[in-house]
């Protein structure tokens, strides 16, 4: 009985957060802000469903399952990467470098450094390392 209540609670929580994530996708005004909504659905929304599944298999079916841990692990590994890629695509497509805060270092944000500039800097660094190797 208690287990049933716990499972139901987890499912309801995950449903609520999934719904809020979707509402956020519709409601928020610009692409970068909309990116925040789905990162929520993957963490607590999916997490709640997985905890419910774990409780169900352990207490009702009577066998322990590791698969939920794996799903969490793979989600936590891949979600930031997709988020990062979407953000970088957005920077390339619709953003101007002037709108971003300065990097605080002497090189620009990686998305806005031209290939020629990067090649020049890397060639210089390599030449320096080569010289140091010869000198040492």
């Amino acid at each position, binding site marked *: 009985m208690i287990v049933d209540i716990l499972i139901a609670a987890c499912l309801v929580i995950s449903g609520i957060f999934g719904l809020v994530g979707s509402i956020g996708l519709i409601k928020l005004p610009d692409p970068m802000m909309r990116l925040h909504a789905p990162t929520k659905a993957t963490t607590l929304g999916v997490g709640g469903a997985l905890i419910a599944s774990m409780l169900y298999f352990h207490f009702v079916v009577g066998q322990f399952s590791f698969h939920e841990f794996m799903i969490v692990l793979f989600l936590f590994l891949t979600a*930031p990467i997709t988020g990062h890629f979407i953000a970088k695509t957005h920077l390339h497509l619709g953003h101007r470098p002037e709108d*971003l*805060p300065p990097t605080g270092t002497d090189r620009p944000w990686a998305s806005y450094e031209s290939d020629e500039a990067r090649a020049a800097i890397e060639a210089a660094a390599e030449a320096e390392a080569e010289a140091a190797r010869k000198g040492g």
Partner: protein
Amino acid sequence: MLRRLLPHPLLTILLILVWQMLVNKVTPGNLVLGTILGVLIPLITAPYWPDIPRLRSLPRIVEYIVIVLWDICVANVQVAVIILFKANANTRPAWVTIPLDLRTPEAITVLASTITLTPGTVSSDLAADGRSLLVHCLDAPDPDAVRDEIKARYERRLMEIFE
């Protein structure tokens, strides 16, 4: 010799464990297959991962994971409140620059992933020399506070783990 055969011992152990969890049953056959995968995959991917990260202390890693999981729960609720109850006109999205003290690529990756996983912040770009991180905040009336919190809460702990 052993170093050549097992370029990343921790990765090998992790792969064996993950394989056992994927098949959900520990049998001798699964252990052998897991070990084969655990040796082959680090060998194949070794050229892309030349340096071995040194992990300093296990309790600190556990502490970090617990803190991040807790923050994910709290931040989820905060962002849900922002989405449901705050008018778009009142939310203050902001770009924040976080100067990095971390130098190891693995540590920076973990930090960037943590920032993205905690809802309300998405790490978007890295300075070309890898010395600062660009983070987008959903609602940050005070961007400096966000920067200080990330540095104090996550980066300081990662420094203790990785460097």
